[in-house]
């Protein structure tokens, strides 16, 4: 009698696995980023607004920063734009935009028309730097600590809920300034 129960037992085991897999399904599309806990990738990119002041990895240090990868061609980016403007209003964490695989004229027009939530915008025309950040679909947002470490990554449009539950608590948990540097946190 024992061995004939095996198939049923195996099925129950399978059910458990499927159930757990199902519960985690909504998170499925969010793959853990291997960059978490590591320093920001090295890069230097042109500045959308000021060609004489390129944006480099070094300048990401010194205060909490939100790095947002976006493009004018990206539908969801338009959806999250309002939220980004609100985050800018809040004034706690500045936003650095990385304009991914886009045209400068389009980007400028878009920001003029919809409002500019970004402190600075770096343009990644050929997508090389985005690859270093492990970007695979816009929009994506990264939380960078004052020490220049990638602390969290959110894939998809930024929402108030995500900002309040995932990003702000991490900012609150650690000092806003790295001692010895100046910063504009509050």
């Amino acid at each position, binding site marked *: 009698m024992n061995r*004939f129960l095996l*198939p*049923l037992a195996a099925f129950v085991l399978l059910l458990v*696995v*499927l159930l*757990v*897999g*199902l*519960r985690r*399904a909504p998170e499925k599309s969010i793959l853990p980023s291997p960059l978490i806990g590591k320093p920001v990738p090295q890069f230097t990119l042109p500045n959308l607004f000021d060609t004489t002041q390129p944006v480099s990895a070094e300048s990401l240090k010194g205060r909490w920063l939100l790095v947002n990868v976006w493009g004018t061609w990206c539908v969801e980016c338009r959806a999250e734009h309002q939220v980004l403007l609100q985050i800018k209003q809040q004034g706690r964490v500045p936003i650095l935009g990385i304009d991914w695989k886009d045209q400068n004229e389009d980007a400028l027009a878009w920001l003029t028309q919809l409002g500019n939530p970004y402190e600075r915008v770096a343009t990644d025309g050929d997508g090389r730097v985005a690859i270093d950040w492990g970007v695979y679909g816009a929009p994506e947002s990264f939380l960078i600590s004052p020490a220049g470490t990638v602390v969290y990554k959110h894939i998809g449009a930024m929402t108030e809920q995500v900002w309040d539950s995932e990003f702000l608590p991490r900012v609150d948990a650690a000092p806003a300034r790295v001692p010895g540097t100046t910063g504009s946190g509050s």
Partner: protein
Amino acid sequence: MLVELGHYALILALLLAAAQAFFGLAGPALRRERWLAVVPSAACGQFVFVALAVGVLVHAFINNDFSVRYVAENSNSALPLFYRVTALWGAHEGSMLLWILVLTLWTMALLARSGHLPSAFAARALGVLGVISFCFLLFTLATSNPFARLIPAAPDGRDLNPLLQDPAFAVHPPILYMGYVGFSVSFALACAAMIEGRRDALWAHWMRPWTVMAWAFLACGIALGSWWAYYELGWGGFWFWDPVENASFMPWLIGTALIHSLAVTDKRGLFKSWTLLLAVSAFSLSLIGTFLVRSGVLVSVHSFAADPSRGIFILILLVVMIGGALALYAWRAPLMKSAAGFDFISRESFLLFNNILLTIAAAVVFGGTLAPMISDTLGLGTLSVGPPYFNPSFLVPILPMLALVALGMHARWRRGGLGQALRPVLLALGVALILGLAASLGVYAHPLTLTPIGATLALWIILSALIDPIERLRRRQPLPASLAGMSIAHIGLGVFVLGITFVQSNTIERDIALKPGQAAQLGAYQFRYEGGQDIEGPNYEGFRAKLTITRNGVPVSVLYPEKRRYLVQGTVQTTAAIAAGVNRDLLAALGEDVGAGAWSLRLQYRPLIRLVWIGALIMAIGGVTAVIGRRARGLAPQGALAPLEDGAR
């Protein structure tokens, strides 16, 4: 108004399914003859109402009724009529309805051909089918109603996914479902046998034709899907070990084991519990496959819109159906022991290992498909499993199995090894070896290690399968359909393996940018890009290129690959152009316009690829041949109105 009728029809079908299930199972148990009589009517009624519901939905599609959400999401007024009908199964809700329709069709078939079955047994089998039907109707009505309205109605629809606007696609899901769902009959017969606690193996005899038919349909469905992917998706692949593909392949593998196991049980009363377990597993895998592709648990090119709440519902249904059957198995299987024996080298021993190896193969595919999810659950990180894992792993059990086929076909039952067939079989091996080596080293040069092995095995199987028919014809003896069918099916297997072997080892693929007038060389073939022009279709616009192919200077073919942009959804599709031939296919697909009149192209030379699908088709033909020519076994015929028997307990 009509649309709501369709909805009500489904609800009525649900009630009738419940009746079918209840009376079919409770009737024999409580020995109520009148209840048994209800079952056929309930089954017929269910079929009528499901067909009605399908008719209503088709009507809505044909008449562009965009107040129905499903129609609005999957159709468009510019869509050609043919595709407006086939859009019925273009997405989740409609395909569930198709599933149910196919289930009722099989139910009707069983009803029609159950004349020779004991009435209690037939009622129980139909009752089990009623349970399955009930579960699926409940699921559809509760979570996936195809008749949901869209208020206000959309002005026009979102159009059918352009990849699905194709004749082969129109046929693929129905045929696939005929196979997939067809295993429910074997499942139902197995459950009925277990409920009754039968100690004989008559049920195995009854189960054989149903299993083979479902198996044949599934083989065709899978082959069609593979062929469609090959020419439709634009890059020449025909099998990706994608979770949805695996979901249909696993039942087929187990179905193959089941067919062979049934032969042993039918003939000698052996392997009863194995066979029952295989019968339950084949359909269970179909059910699990249905769950996997509709719940968002797996990543796939193919999967339907993911919705975890649907997933929970299906899981509960799985518990009822599969859990119930396996519990029955745990209860009844111990009764089934037989005292028969067989020799080390006998048909039974070959089929024993055939069972084991096919089951292992199915387990490997199952494991690989679920591995990413399991790894994630156990916190072992995100794993990704694709062809580089499946291809070698699948061969581990399958290569030995292929080696056994040519011998196993001729082994005698019970004892005696291969008897007189040994010499011809070994001779066949020798011939196959010579031909296989010649093909691998001569005709198709640059073999991989496995090429001569695959070629030899394939040829050996084909030659071995021909031995018996040739012998019978030589002696002017009649060739029974079952023997003919078996031989044909095995030949199909050999043809299939031959195709796979050479396509895997000798495909030539080039990605190259060409300007008009430039050419690329693939082996002996030269592809010359002649330029192209813009084109317009009923619901798309695009670009069509022209390529001329020559072989050693002799013109062979002209190809017109296209790149289309569908106007409604704005999606882009690559239409590959294929110069088909039994011995090779030549493919060209457009990549990107790289400027200056040049286009990037993917060019392929694929030897013997047609044999892959032709082989599958031959296997299916073999199966059908065996079923149609089946001889009656001399059981006293018992009509559906025969009194309840005793001793069925």
